[in-house]
């Protein structure tokens, strides 16, 4: 059964059709790649999946914990529905430490009230300790344990990307959306990231959708690829099928 259904999804900004008439169905436990030239509508599509934009027409239906339609999407409710994301232009909390950044990911899983936080009641210590221990484990996975007290803005680019993924994982999602996770990484880092993404998919039992320009990463780990061009879906299939698709080649290289 597919966990994400996209039905005839469109989004226009004034006269510009950023995304138009997208249909797709995605099964659980896969890594899905979304590729396409610049301005093809990939990030807009992500923003539609995470409630930052609401669709002009059509809808998205998640079937993660329970069935939710894009009519009830709000950005802050998405982690509650089991969806977490990263951003194309890294959005870490720059003046907070790495551990605090990751702890913020646990926001929805914290369950103590205002009085407990003002008076430091036992539930404060219980929740905070649990989240702190889990955050340490996450940082260990990403090899960032020794930098936990560093400010986020002091980390190199590649590691900031990792912190962002760790923060998203802290929200305990079922579906993880990665917007250009390998941007700004060198080939070695990309290789390492490829292994890591594959590993977290199995370890955390996730479905991952990623936007990426780095074809080595996309072709290496995605089981299915969707190709966008001018807001429409021009091709989908396994990496091999897509690579040999004429329309895709035309979109990337141009043609008559």
């Amino acid at each position, binding site marked *: 059964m597919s966990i994400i259904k996209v039905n005839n999804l469109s989004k226009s900004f004034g006269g510009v059709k950023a995304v138009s008439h997208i249909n797709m169905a995605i099964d659980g436990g896969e890594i899905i790649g979304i590729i396409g030239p610049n301005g093809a509508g990939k990030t807009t599509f992500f923003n539609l999946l995470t409630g930052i934009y609401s669709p002009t027409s059509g809808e998205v239906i998640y079937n993660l914990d329970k069935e939710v339609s894009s009519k009830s999407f709000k950005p*802050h409710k998405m982690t*509650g529905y089991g969806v977490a994301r990263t951003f194309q232009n890294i959005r*870490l*909390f720059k003046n*907070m430490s790495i*551990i605090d950044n990751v702890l913020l990911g646990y926001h929805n899983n914290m369950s103590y009230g205002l009085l407990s936080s003002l008076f430091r009641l036992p539930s404060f210590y219980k929740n905070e300790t649990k*989240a702190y221990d889990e955050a340490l484990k996450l940082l260990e996975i990403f090899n960032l344990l020794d930098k936990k007290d560093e400010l986020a803005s002091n980390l190199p680019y590649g590691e900031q990307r990792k912190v962002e993924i760790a923060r998203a994982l802290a929200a305990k999602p079922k579906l993880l959306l990665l917007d250009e996770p390998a941007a700004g990484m060198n080939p070695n880092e990309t290789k390492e990231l490829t292994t890591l993404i594959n590993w977290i998919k199995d370890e955390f039992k996730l479905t991952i959708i990623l936007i990426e320009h780095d074809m080595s990463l996309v072709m290496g780990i995605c089981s299915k690829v969707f190709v966008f061009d001018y807001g429409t879906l021009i091709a989908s299939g396994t990496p091999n099928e897509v690579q040999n698709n004429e329309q895709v080649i035309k979109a990337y290289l141009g043609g008559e």
Partner: protein
Amino acid sequence: MKLFNKKNILSFLAVLIIYAIAGFFINTGFIDSYIFLNIVLIGINIILAVSLNLITGFTGQFSLGHAAFMSIGAYTAGILTAKLDQPFWIGIAGAALFASFAGIIIGIPTLRLKGDYLAIATLGFAEIVKIIGLNTEYIGGATGLNDIPRYTTWTWLYFCVVATVLFISNFVKSYKGRACIAIGEDEIAAEAMGVNTTYYKVLAFTLGAFFAGIAGALYANYFYFLKPDSFGFMKSIDILVIVVFGGMGSIKGSIAGAILLSVISLFLQGIPELRMVVYSLILFLIMVYRPQGIMGKSDFKFFKKRGVVNVYHQSK
């Protein structure tokens, strides 16, 4: 052992010792009424600055209406103690509740605005409160509210300040406070991580107003007399200056800022003609050479290195 680690016990003792020593000097007359007046002002300013810091420094919501919450608290306490003959604790509780209620009412519509728009909206709110005060006969209108009993003692003042500092620093070190700080850092990312930004902005605003209300009650029951003009635009700016001077997002900075600025202006009273010139010059120099404020974001560092959770972990 959770609550009773070494650091907490030491701070608890320090709080009691400072209270006892200062109380002793006040009772024996070593601290005269003029110095005590200034101590009251410093205490009130600490409460105001720390509570505004929660709104502006931590949550990043630029508010120019903090004096309005103080005036709501002051008038509530004034009415409760002077007109209705209630004891002081009811005055303080009423002031805090009323001010925080005003915080909710104002917060819900205005906190959708950002940056300078929010500043103008809160400024407008403060003016409305002032004009309502000027035109309400029951609370004396422009002539002011008189004959408020003097209940503010060293004990009330000191423990209100301690409670404010304690509760607000506990708050910013909880997940709710972390959500507020995250909103100040990057609203979109905070939202994507599940933070209901409107709720937390209103929460920070309400908590800040709650403590500003307490400051107002202490003010009303010390100075016998209230008039709406004392809580105008300039009072809000004064509080903001303390927060920026001490360091946005630093509670220690707000405390240090409130004390330092009061002491500076106290010393400058010897040269009344040049007082404001020198005072402004000091502010100017601090902002040029230390734009992050005297304490910078030092609370954050403190939190990271030896914060509650870390301390708890090390002491386990």
